[in-house]
């Protein structure tokens, strides 16, 4: 129901986007909802498919291998250094789509709004989504809006779903990973999580770190074109690099061995983590990827990545090893060895 209705002066009073708030009528299926969709959502997201105005968007697809991915976005605060829930909701799903090597095509968006949410904030968020969708060439072609009572939501939640088409012959999957392969990361880790934490009310610290939230479709396009032998890619979001590598180790029944020295961590991120008792390996990223490729392709892949602005700080951070326990281990900067386990519980700031 996010589709744009054919324009008309159906609404005598324009929506007061500056001062208005979401109320229950905006989710009722009536004219107030139609107006919200037309004057706020569609005015930013405008595209031909959305404008069809039906319950679904229709478009032509070529035959081939399609991918589909979805993510719910519940970030708090909604606006953070380097982005907001709008841009994040596009990047988060586009990145999951492109980790398959696919060219992303279209997005859908489902909004769950909390009664009382300022329309001005919603407007900023939708504008930011529109910009991100434009950047990635993935229009939001269909959507839905629900309103929940105050105290039953958190401002706005956005679930996006994306589809894409994988270039012929390409098959990237976690189970392709083999001992001997090299592990690459596309840049500095932990920026997103630290930027979010820096803006949380009760942790307030100041830093110049901004979220790394960005779409990786163009970097990925270069990578798979030049090195189609890549085994798999994954974006280390929640749970960070540590959890992503454990996932892959598990999926491929291998172990992973990392070099702490090789992992790019900004000094500020390192410092913020030390202050809060966190480990950058477990901190979320929203514009980075882990790639695993055969050892003999690793240097080439690294060069391809470094040649792209979004991969300029890429590094080979370790290798895949045989390990029936699927452990991820790391040689520390100090020369010792440690396990890099799954995240246990939550990443909470701690005092000891």
């Amino acid at each position, binding site marked *: 129901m996010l589709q744009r209705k054919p324009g008309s002066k159906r609404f005598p009073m324009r929506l007061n986007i500056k001062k208005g708030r979401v109320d229950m009528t905006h989710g009722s299926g009536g004219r107030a909802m139609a107006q919200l969709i037309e004057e706020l959502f569609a005015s930013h997201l405008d595209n031909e498919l959305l404008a069809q105005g039906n319950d679904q968007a229709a478009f032509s697809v070529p035959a081939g291998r399609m991918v589909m991915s979805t993510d719910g976005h519940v970030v708090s605060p909604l606006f953070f250094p380097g982005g907001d829930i709008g841009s994040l909701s596009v990047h988060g799903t586009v990145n999951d789509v492109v980790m398959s090597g696919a060219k992303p095509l279209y997005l859908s968006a489902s909004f769950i709004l909390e009664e009382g949410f300022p329309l001005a904030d919603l407007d900023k968020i939708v504008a930011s989504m529109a910009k991100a969708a434009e950047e990635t060439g993935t229009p939001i072609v269909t959507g839905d809006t629900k309103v929940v009572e105050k105290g039953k939501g958190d401002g706005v939640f956005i679930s996006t779903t994306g589809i894409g088409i994988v270039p012929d012959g390409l098959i990237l999957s976690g189970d392709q990973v083999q001992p001997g392969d090299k592990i690459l990361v596309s840049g500095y880790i932990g920026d997103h999580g630290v930027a979010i934490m820096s803006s949380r009310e*009760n942790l307030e610290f100041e830093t110049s770190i901004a979220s790394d939230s960005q779409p990786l479709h163009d970097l990925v396009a270069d990578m798979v074109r030049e090195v189609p032998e890549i085994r798999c890619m994954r974006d280390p979001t929640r749970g960070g690099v540590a959890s992503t590598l454990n996932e892959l180790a598990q999926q491929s029944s291998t172990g992973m061995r990392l070099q702490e020295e090789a992992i790019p961590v900004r000094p500020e991120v390192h410092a913020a983590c030390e202050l809060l008792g966190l480990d950058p390996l477990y901190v979320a990223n929203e514009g980075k990827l882990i790639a695993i490729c055969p050892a003999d392709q690793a240097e080439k892949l690294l060069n391809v990545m470094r040649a792209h602005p979004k991969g300029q700080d890429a590094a080979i951070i370790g290798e895949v090893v045989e390990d029936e326990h699927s452990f991820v281990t790391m040689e520390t900067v100090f*020369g010792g*060895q*440690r*396990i890099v386990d799954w995240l246990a519980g939550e990443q909470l700031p701690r005092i000891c």
Partner: protein
Amino acid sequence: MKYVDEFRSKDGAKKLATEIARTVDPNRSYHVMEFCGGHTHAIFRYGVQDLMPDNVQFVHGPGCPVCVLPIPRIDAAIELAERHDAIICSYGDMMRVPASKKRSLIKAKADGADIRMVYSTQDALKIAQDNPDRQVVFFAIGFETTTPPSAVAIKQAQALGLENFSVFCNHVLTPAAIQHILQAPDLRDFGAVSIDGFLGPSHVSSIIGSQPYDYFAQEFQKPVVIAGFEPLDVMQATLMLIRQVNEGRFEVENEYSRVVTPEGNLKAQSLVQEVFELRRSFEWRGLGDVPYSALQIRECYAAFDAERRFDLTKSKGQDVKACECPAILRGAKKPTDCKLFGTVCTPDNPQGSCMVSSEGSCAAYWSYGRFRLAQNQVA
């Protein structure tokens, strides 16, 4: 990071490792108890044990404030939130520590209790100011390092006239615990290891100074070296301990002199003195009742004492039966001696406090040692 990176250098580690290897007497063994979880963490995080000769062994002590808090105290915090409808402000560390009936603060929160994670006592005060209609209780845990901030908060609350703020005090004292370990015959026997020396607390000592250790170094004839929490600090202090042992000395030495002075932080001490007084006795997980080992809020600050303000049930909550935390905290057993370790009890499903705190021995064994165990099994 200045004063940090220098003390984590791989180069320095190599040099100190060589020196330690050169210094040890191959005909004897050295059992070094690191009292503090901070040291335990550094040893595992950086693989310090790997750099030690085989005859130098670290024995992990009870110096983790999260680990030593007995279950009834966590039950009480939950009771404050649930029965007394208070907002409980807790450091993140306590959130997942098992209480009785398979509960924890995080589960109580999921069940609807208003439990908030704070980073500082300042945050708790702010929450009290922002919620004048609610009782706000700060769940105070920690050793001498963490006590002064609680004292400051109580004094600030008084100055602000905050009537809805109180502190559930669980602050404990380090020297009392170390002394207890050395004193109790059953504890000394139990472990079948005799401790040759102590790595003394770093941050606790920054408050209390190095003097408080003099008494028991002399009384029990055990050397103490106060050590920083960086891995080179641990190695250097271990070297200093080995030298004392070799030379038959039992002195208090201070490796962490960049922060610790003999007399400590007198201002902090006097604030603590003003707000808190000794408890006659306090239960430590693993150690049982230890006399004069904890603090309580003085009568004159009674208004800010959650234990006086709220009527609390005396919980009889106990550790999971097979959990060996008590013995592990005494240095008498290793995590791998526990039947639950790594099977039922993991960091995702902690059965005891030692598996929750990143300073707990079980968590450290699991997170940083598990791959070694696996290698051993394979071998």
